[in-house]
C-alpha cells in the first residue's frame, strides 16, 4: 500500500468517524425525545389516575356526609367509655342513687356482634345483669331514665314478674354498654 492509498484510507476513516459521530448525536437526541414522550405518556396516565382518585374520594365524601354528620352527634357519648371499669361504676352508681331494692348485680364482658359480624369499633359489650324487687313506677321510671341519660346503653333483656310484696315487681334487667376500641396513644 503506497502513501497515497494510506492517505485515502485515513481520510475515509475520518469520513466514517464523522458520520458515526453525527449519527450518535442524532441517536442521543432521539433517545431523549423518546424518554420525553414516555414521560408525557406517564404524566397523562397519572393525571387520569389522579382525576379518578379525586372523583372516588369526592363520591365517598358525598355519600358518607349524612352518615358522618349523624354519627358525629353520637361520637361524644361513645368517646367517654373505653373501659369496663368505667361502665360498671357508671351503672352501679346509678343503682345506688336510686335507692331501690337491688337483689343482685353481675357484670360480664362479652364480644359484640351484630348480624353475626364483629363490630370492630365497638368490639366488647359490658353486660350488667341486675335484679330488683321494688315499686312498679320506681322501677319503670328508673330504667326509662337510664335509657335517656345513657343513650348509648341499651336494654338487652327485661323480665317483669310479681314481686315479694303486694304492688311490687321483680325486674330482671340486662343492660348492655358498648366499649369503644381504645385508640393507640400517640
Amino acid at each position: 500500500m503506497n502513501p497515497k492509498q494510506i492517505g485515502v484510507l485515513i481520510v475515509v476513516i475520518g469520513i466514517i468517524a464523522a458520520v458515526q459521530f453525527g449519527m450518535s448525536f442524532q441517536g442521543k437526541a432521539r433517545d431523549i425525545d423518546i424518554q420525553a414522550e414516555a414521560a408525557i405518556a406517564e404524566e397523562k396516565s397519572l393525571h387520569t389516575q389522579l382525576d379518578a382518585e379525586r372523583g372516588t374520594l369526592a363520591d365517598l365524601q358525598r355519600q358518607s356526609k349524612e352518615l358522618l354528620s349523624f354519627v358525629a352527634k353520637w361520637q361524644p357519648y361513645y368517646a367517654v367509655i373505653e373501659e369496663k371499669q368505667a361502665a360498671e361504676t357508671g351503672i352501679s352508681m346509678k343503682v345506688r342513687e336510686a335507692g331501690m331494692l337491688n337483689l343482685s348485680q353481675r357484670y360480664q364482658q362479652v364480644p359484640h356482634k351484630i348480624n353475626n359480624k364483629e363490630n370492630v369499633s365497638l368490639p366488647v359489650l359490658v353486660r350488667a345483669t341486675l335484679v330488683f324487687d321494688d315499686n312498679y313506677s320506681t322501677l319503670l321510671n328508673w330504667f326509662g331514665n337510664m335509657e335517656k341519660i345513657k343513650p348509648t346503653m341499651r336494654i338487652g333483656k327485661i323480665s317483669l314478674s310479681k314481686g315479694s310484696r303486694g304492688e311490687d315487681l321483680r325486674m330482671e334487667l340486662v343492660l348492655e354498654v358498648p366499649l369503644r376500641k381504645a385508640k393507640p396513644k400517640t
Partner: protein
Amino acid sequence: MQISAAQIDDLKTERKDIMAPLPRVMRLVPILFYGSLAFLVVIGSVSSLRAKFAGDRRNAVLRQVEDWKAQIVASKKERAALEAQISEAVDLEDWVLASMPLQPLVVAIIRSMNPQSSIVDLTIERDAETPSQLRIGLRLNSDSDKQLEQTLEVIRRMNYREFNPTQTRIRGDLDYKASLLWQDPNSERQTPEERSAGKGGA
C-alpha cells in the same frame, strides 16, 4: 557562479515514478470528507439543540409526574382515612339503630291491661344476632282473648310488627310468644337529644 539549466538536468538521476496515480474516482474522497465534516457540524448542532429541548421537556414532565404521584398518594391516604372513618361510623350507626329504647314499649304494654286482666310475666329480650328484633314473652291472666288483641294493637302502634307468634293456655293463663320487628329502623336517624327526649322509635 551560475549553473546552467542543462547542467542541473544533468545532475538529476534517472528514476521511475514510484507512486502510481490514484483512480479518478478518488477525487471524491476529499469532497466526501468536507461533506462529512459539514454533516457533523449541522447534524451535531441540530441534535444537540433537539436533545436540550427534549431534555428540558422531559425534566419538566418528570417534575409534574412526581407532583401527580405525590398527589395520588395524598388522595389515597385521605381516602383510606375516610374509609376508616366510614367503617367506624357504620359500626356506631349499627349500634344506634339496634338499641332503640324499650321503656315506652314496656309501659305501653302494661297500660294496655284492662282492670280484669293482669300480667303474670313479661319478658322482652333483644335478639343477640339481630338486635333490632325483639322476642316477647307475655303471660296474661285474663278471661278473654280480647285483652291480647288489645295489647298487640298497642304494640303495632309502637311501630313493631310481630311474627312467628305462638299462643298457649297454661293453667288458665294465656302464654303468648312472638318476635317483634321494629319496622324500618333506618327510616329515622335519631340524634342523642331526640332519643333522650323520647321522640320516635318505641
